[in-house]
């Protein structure tokens, strides 16, 4: 008799999400990703003073608030085509970079590693599923936890030097930055950075490589559609025409030069999302957030963003691929390796940015917001992030955000095409349906900013599941 195994929550993810997986003969044949939290930030922003946006939107995510601050100030500045002083651009990059490092270390050691190695036999690490753990608990990776705790903390301390405090750094304001660099703060920053570069080089990257060597099969698992895209991040000049990570997209895992993104080709489907169908397939600049729950055929609080109507994966692998820094492959383990290598690339670039700060030069020029539409594009640690804003006399009349996890964990769209994570789960072999660690490995490789739940069912049980979770 088929058994229904609902696994909810899946853990070691930020936020709330569930994934329902259908397993047939030990293989995932279908998957549905569900965002289970709705807060309505876009509605909250309507009618507020434009300068409130960087404050409010940072609270979307406590792991990557700096990315939201960045996207928000860029969006507001674009309304009046304002550029900020070089010092402000660099200080923003340094604070964003510090948060990348803390986020990547947090993800590997605290969210993902437990999928591959048993950690301490005590809460919160235990109890846990016990299947396919190929690396013994005595491995040095396990012993690196205290240094990883220290490294993540130090990365936040480094970010607070110019960000004031972490998380939630509101030194980001339209028109520039509030903190002013001094020789003392630069020296302090550099000391933390050097310590972290050493950690990334001598501990983090080798640990990821070690797991990759033992779980080499995961270089061919969880690839998905292999469509990658990046908005790009870390402006290297005043107009942002040069960036540390470039903008572009590729399809079907193609190598070589990426194609140029046309921002008009982004739209969001809500056919299977708990939002009114009157808002279906809109460009984010015209987007609207009208919740509707219950709604037939809907199963997620996430909208389904698409580029030219197709799903795309965002994240460190996408960035590194588009930029030509990493094109080994697209898989679970490639995502981890690209993420670790990216941490080093960003950290090393930060050394250069630090030396280009000019003590005494301005960090702020007039950031008054008038009327018009704007867009701010950047990259959160876990992928492309966009803010679209419409303002009238300095007040917000429309605000739309597309987070990287909306791209990666999106539900099906109006053409019934699965999102990237849903697609990547299909075909994954599961040894024990009661402990589907393989599913977790795929999910965690995207570093989704959601708490997640996996509902494992077998095909014949589908009717019962529908009655349990009346979504379809």
């Amino acid at each position: 008799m088929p058994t229904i195994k609902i696994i909810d929550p899946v853990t070691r993810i930020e936020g709330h999400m569930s994934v329902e997986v259908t397993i047939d003969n030990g293989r995932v044949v279908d998957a549905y990703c569900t965002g289970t939290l709705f807060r309505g930030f876009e509605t909250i922003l309507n009618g507020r003073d434009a300068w409130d946006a960087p404050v409010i939107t940072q609270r979307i995510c406590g792991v990557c608030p700096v990315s939201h601050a960045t996207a928000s100030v860029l969006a507001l500045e674009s309304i009046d085509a304002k550029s900020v002083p070089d010092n402000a651009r660099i200080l923003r990059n340094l604070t964003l970079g510090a948060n990348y490092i803390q986020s990547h270390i947090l993800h590997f050691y605290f969210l993902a590693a437990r999928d591959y190695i048993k950690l301490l036999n005590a809460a919160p690490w235990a109890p846990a599923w016990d299947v396919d753990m190929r690396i013994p608990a005595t491995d040095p990776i396990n012993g690196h936890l205290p240094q990883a705790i220290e490294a993540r903390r130090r990365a936040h301390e480094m970010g607070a030097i110019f960000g004031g405090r972490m998380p939630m750094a509101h030194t980001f304001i339209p028109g520039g930055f509030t903190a002013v660099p001094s020789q003392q703060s630069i020296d302090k920053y550099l000391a933390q950075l050097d310590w972290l570069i050493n950690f990334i080089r001598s501990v983090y990257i080798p640990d990821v490589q070690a797991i990759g060597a033992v779980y080499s099969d995961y270089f061919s698992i969880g690839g998905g559609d292999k469509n990658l895209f990046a908005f790009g991040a870390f402006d290297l000049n005043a107009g942002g025409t040069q960036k540390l990570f470039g903008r572009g997209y590729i399809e079907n895992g193609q190598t070589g030069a990426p194609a140029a993104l046309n921002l008009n080709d982004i739209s969001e489907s809500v056919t299977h999302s708990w939002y009114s169908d009157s808002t279906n397939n809109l460009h984010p600049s015209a987007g609207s957030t009208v919740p509707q729950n219950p709604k037939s055929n809907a199963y997620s609080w996430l909208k389904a963003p698409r580029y030219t109507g197709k799903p795309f994966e965002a994240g460190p692998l996408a960035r590194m691929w588009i930029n030509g820094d990493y094109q080994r492959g697209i898989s679970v383990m490639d995502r981890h390796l690209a993420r670790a290598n990216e941490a080093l690339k960003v950290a090393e670039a930060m050394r250069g940015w630090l030396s280009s700060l000019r003590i005494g030069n301005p960090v702020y020029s007039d950031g008054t917001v008038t009327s018009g539409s704007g867009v701010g594009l950047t990259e959160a640690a876990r992928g492309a992030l966009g803010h679209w804003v419409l303002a009238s006399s300095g007040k917000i009349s429309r605000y739309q955000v597309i987070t990287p996890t909306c791209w990666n964990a999106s539900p099906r769209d109006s053409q019934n095409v699965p999102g990237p994570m849903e697609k990547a789960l299909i075909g994954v072999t599961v040894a024990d349906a009661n402990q589907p660690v393989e599913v977790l490995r795929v999910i965690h490789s995207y570093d989704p900013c959601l708490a997640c739940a996996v509902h494992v069912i077998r095909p014949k049980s589908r009717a019962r599941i529908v009655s349990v979770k009346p979504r379809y």
Partner: protein
Amino acid sequence: MQLTRRQFLTLLAYSAAVAGCGGGGSSGGAGQPGTAPPGTSPVISMIPANGGPTVLWLSGAACSGCTVSLANRIAPTDPTDVGDLLINHINLAYHTTLMGAAGDMAVKNLNDLSAGPFILAVEGGIPTAFNGKACVLWSDGGTEVTALSAVRDLASRSMANLCIGTCASFGGVAAASPNPTQIQSVSQATGKSTINIPGCPAHPDWIVLTIAELLAGRTPALDSNGRPTTFFSGESLNVHERCPRRERDEAGTFGLDGRCLQELGCKGPSTQGDCPTRQWNNKTNWCVGANAICLGCTESGFPDRFSPFYRQGGG
């Protein structure tokens, strides 16, 4: 094979030596890896736990920022950091971001442990719209459990209810007008009294030291907003009263160092908290220290009470 705590400690010492990355000690200075003086490594402080009390940590309409902030704890006194807290001081049996267990195993663990004595910690506000379905936490026996139903159940049985951050304490940013998901504070949603540790995010010391008080068998003295008086109450804990920039010239625009920020919109005069002296991130800095205004993030009514936050462009 899983490690016992004792075996883990041995491994930690070994791994730290191999990696040459033994930690900078509780001072958190910017020393090079491997240069930490003996006896100051966090590894040494990780002595075997003696079975601390069970803490069940739920996330409602949260952003995980308070959890991330908790991980920034570092101090010379116990718990010295988040590893020390988890390994030696509390039994954090449920925390979706940190725990190994998933699915049924996690829910069973929660059910088993909540049958005994436990402390409930809640991060995030509690959505009540859509019958609570704006925030679903887990499934139990095939039934989706909302944050609203979970917190009502657990808060009625816990030894103490801790609100971690402004959202759980007062509603916070996601409850801002028009409060699209009709979020309530834990106290509103449950009718139970709560110990409120606000802040957006909460400072790790506020969280850890409040838990330490409870573990020592003491109930922290609370102000009328349910906040521990030690960190939030009295004239001496008004941010402006304690601000080192209080007597300085006022900044008329942004990006000037060392000035009072009141003209730009600083909420220090309306805000309680020991930020000016405690500072953040291992005493690295604080908002005003980076010329950023105080947002009033520890106060009931944040953010609407203080919005708009800025005088655009300056005073």
